[in-house]
């Protein structure tokens, strides 16, 4: 159980860096950062070569802003944020999507749980928590991804493609994402499994909206993703 002192935590300490990868998120990222800054004082946004004015919107908030000169993909943006956070002395690093799907207060729960059990990774799970307005096709795709990951990585989790995670510095130092696009979620789990460090799953809330669904992973792309992961395994 989470102790009382931790339950009352209203804001994460400054040594918790929250990495937000963003690509063409100008219409959404302002409110997302506003909500995030209420619980996290140290936020690093990685603008992944957006073609809209994402960077201009981000500059209005008191956050670190890194810019990729070209679009590389979410995995590359997250790794840039992690590398930067480690260089700046972060003791904990979280990842948080820019599309407004996540609930910022879930980070507090994850932080409390991570410290309570002494694990190195806390992974958000919508299947242990709540997924609002999730289409059945998305549910099916995510469940297939869970089983695919169990087979490929041997890691037993309930949600493999959830963008909200928290890790200790020690844990982050074992993560090196080389798969730039959406395959990074499976690669992270793979590296967690190989690190031998303890991980926990924490129930979180995901809110689907028409916009987030339009930007999110398409079902057809999931097949390409699985093929890429398979090719990567063969080439290793």
């Amino acid at each position: 159980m989470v102790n009382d002192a931790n339950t009352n935590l209203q804001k994460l300490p400054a040594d918790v860096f929250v990495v937000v990868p963003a690509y063409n998120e100008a219409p959404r990222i302002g409110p997302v950062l506003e909500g995030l800054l209420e619980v996290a004082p140290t936020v690093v946004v990685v603008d992944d070569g957006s073609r809209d004015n994402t960077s201009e919107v981000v500059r209005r908030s008191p956050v670190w802003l890194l810019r990729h000169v070209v679009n590389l993909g979410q995995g590359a943006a997250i790794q840039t944020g992690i590398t930067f956070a480690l260089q700046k002395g972060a003791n904990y690093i979280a990842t948080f999507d820019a599309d407004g799907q996540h609930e910022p207060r879930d980070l507090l729960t994850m932080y409390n749980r991570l410290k309570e059990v002494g694990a190195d990774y806390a992974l958000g799970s919508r299947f242990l928590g709540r997924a609002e307005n999730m289409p059945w096709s998305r549910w099916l795709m995510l469940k297939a991804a869970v089983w695919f990951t169990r087979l490929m990585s041997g890691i037993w989790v309930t949600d493999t493609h959830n963008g909200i995670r928290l890790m200790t510095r020690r844990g982050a130092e074992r993560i090196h994402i080389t798969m730039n696009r959406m395959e990074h979620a499976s690669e992270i789990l793979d590296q967690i499994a190989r690190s031998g460090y303890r991980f926990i799953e924490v129930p979180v809330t995901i809110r689907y909206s028409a916009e987030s669904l339009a930007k999110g992973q398409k079902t057809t792309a999931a097949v390409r993703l699985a093929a890429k992961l398979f090719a990567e395994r063969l080439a290793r």
Partner: protein
Amino acid sequence: MTLFQWIFGTLCAVIALRYLIRMIQGDGSRLAAIFWGLLWAGAAVTIFRPGITAEIAAWMGIGRGADLVMYLGLLAGIGISRYFYSRLRRLENAFTELVRHIAINQLS
């Protein structure tokens, strides 16, 4: 000899000779010159002496010469695909590191 053998066999032999000259002159990678030279020379030999694949196949316990060529082609295809995939990934990783370095250094 058929017209096909004259044209394509000679062509393969000329290409193999070209790689042999490159290897002797030390122009480019010696290993690549040996590999490609042997490959083209092998092609020339099998065109001029079509029965040789059947002989090698029989010696190896494979039914037909065409099967042997197909198996070797398949293995070569897999090897070449893997080589180019690895090169592509290395290039992609180097490019990503460069973009990452620029992003972090611009802020610093």
